[in-house]
């Protein structure tokens, strides 16, 4: 069931062989490594949630080539990323930037953790003062079942 949607999307796309093609790769292994690291953070715009490095789509291939061209020209990682974001928007970044519209996303987990810790502290403080509750007495029905069970075991 997992990746069914991705699979459905692949039906629409023509899928040429496998993601990165050797002909795209930069001759300098250092630069190629940088390109791959960069590419892993860039979304293939027509796929479900694949990076351009993982995707077979033509659009991802184009973007991979753009990234490599820019790197070969001597641009820094930030310059390349900015170039791509200026064209495609934040949507292309798999790690969303920290800004007003993503505040909840980035702060949310810490708020959750904090809330959890506060709740646990509150729990211990309340528990410290409260006396342990006595178990409720058995109802007649439960008494009957208990007797039946005890008889059973004999």
């Amino acid at each position, binding site marked *: 069931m997992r990746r069914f949607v991705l699979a459905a999307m692949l039906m629409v796309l023509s899928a040429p062989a496998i993601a990165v093609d050797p002909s795209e790769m930069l001759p300098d292994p250092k630069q190629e490594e940088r390109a791959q690291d960069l590419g892993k953070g860039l979304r293939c715009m027509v796929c479900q949630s694949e990076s351009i490095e993982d995707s077979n789509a033509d659009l991802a291939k184009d973007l991979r080539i753009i990234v490599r061209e820019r790197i070969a020209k001597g641009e820094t990682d930030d310059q390349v990323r900015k170039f791509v974001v200026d064209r495609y928007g934040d949507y292309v970044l798999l790690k*969303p930037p920290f800004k007003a519209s993503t505040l909840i996303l980035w702060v949310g987990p810490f708020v959750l953790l904090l809330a959890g810790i506060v709740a646990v502290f509150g729990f211990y403080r309340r528990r410290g003062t409260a006396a342990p509750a006595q178990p409720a007495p058995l109802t007649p029905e439960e008494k009957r079942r208990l007797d039946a069970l005890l008889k059973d075991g004999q």
Partner: protein
Amino acid sequence: MIAEIGHFALILALAVALLQATLPLIGAQRGDPVWMGLSGPTSVAQMVLVTVSFAALTHAYVTSDFSVLNVAQNSHTDKPMLYKVAGVWGNHEGSLLLWITILAVFGCAVTAFGRNLPPGLKARALAVQAIITVGFLLFILFTSNPFERLDPAPMNGNGLNPLLQDPGLAFHPPMLYLGYVGFSMAFSFAIAALIEGRVDAAWARWVRPWTLAAWVFLTGGIVLGSWWAYYELGWGGWWYWDPVENASFMPWLAGTALLHSAVVVEKRDALKAWTIFLAITAFGLSLLGTFLVRSGVITSVHAFASDPTRGVFILALLVVAIGGSFTLFAFRAPNLKTGGLFSPVSREGALLLNNVLMATGAGTVLLGTLYPLFADALDLGKVSVGPPFFNSVFVPLMVPMVLAMAVGPLMSWKRGDLAGVLGRLKIAIGLSLVITAATWFLQGGSAGPWWAAGGMGLAAWLLLGTLVDLAERVRLFKAPLSDSLARAGRLPRSYWGMMLAHGGLALFIAGATASSAWKVEAVQSQKIGEAITVSGYTFTLKEVKDVPGANYLATEGIFEVTKDGKFFAEMRPAKRVYRQPPRPTTEAAIEGTFLGDVYAVIGDKDVVSGGYVTRLYFNPLVPWMWVGTLFMVLGGLTSLTDRRHRIGAPTRARAVAQAAKA
């Protein structure tokens, strides 16, 4: 005809479910044993009817009855039988039918095994199960009928997506669903307990094995999917933080937390409201997971809106199920009596810490998965939340949890002694620090990623901490070996289960860290006879030939792989092109070794150079991941066979007594 029987059985099942959802509930409220007793026969009838329906659809697939729309859209006569059967649940309608079939089987299991349950609790729990069934049946009958006919029937079907024609993926959905639906047991019993206003050790004792069974299936299902991605997608990756993956991971996190807090309810009569909350959450996330994947909402909010009937129905179902139960929880939970007291530093305290971190983890994954949808719906712009987000937020949350995991089992209940426990763990502390330092040294310091050494140290800490606990319990090296073995034999199976699961997680962490940090990859155009060396393994491409399959044509590359000049293996990765629908898939060749997987993929012919595009990998410690997760599943199964779950069956005692009399 058979398809109509299936359809009709579903309608009858709806009628029965309506009875089962109402009468026992009223009966339990009035204390009427006859009405309460109706939950038994209705749950059996339910199971029979839904199974008939499922069998009818399976029959349509097996016989390739293309007058049924669903079969025509998703099957083909050329498909091997396994994938004809798997095709039943490889689509929206059929997977929902599988879902309620499993639900009905679980309901029937309550009737079959729950003879000694308090009648009120049983009646109410079964009624809640029936309410879920009603919701799903309405959804299927009104928006997703799998038995719809097609006239005139086509000569052949559209076929199943070749990516899914794989044994791993054939069994992946049923496993996941067994997990999802398994949590409905904990959910139904939680709602029943809220209605009754009491949760006690007996409740936890009943709920725990079902939760454990669900957890085992869900773990297995997720691993199967991950394993499939690893060998089928051909990139050497195994987890992508894809929304569809997250959909199954969230209930797993909540379910794991539930498993641990239910222990505290059973043993110490504490954390009741929290356990109920987790039971609702685990099932709520299972529902969400099912629908996230099935509704297409993940692909885009607009795809969801383009089919409003299904979308609105799904939203309504989620709101009623999750909203309704949390409302009930808000009203009734404060009445749950709190039981045993414990200090923050204790076994309970450690379990609670685990729960807070697990729940935060589940919340984080939920936030990251749904955020793009909310942002899109609220016009905040399109956002992508991908692996870099989850890796930088989720993974750090799990670090303190794993640190505490080694300590928790050594703590005593009620009031623990942290300094004492750390003292007992000093060997583990020392060795894991050594392993951390050694890893750092071996990877060449900052030449590798900075977190890799920490990850390996963490894995070592968890494994050693777990082993120290075991060694102490059997008094290893402190008592004669025979005495230690006898002690080991007497340890409860649930303890062995925990050992296996925690130790398995340690292996998994090691594998996940190593494969993410030190994967070696070579992508090139390789000519016949050319040799490429990756991580000490030399791959020589010997031959490339066409091999016909059942419903595809494979292009197979034959590699001779040598290590240090000696023959290591012959590897045959392939690329398949299916006939219907015509699409290529990659079949990676994998040779596992103790230290990692040797992994080869072959692609298209390179027209320019005359060679073939090949991707060759060394994926370090990946087998540790699969073995580790296998241990986790085995741990769950071992714990399920614990004596605790087998004793106290009055029916058996009665049978024995009668046999003695005769």
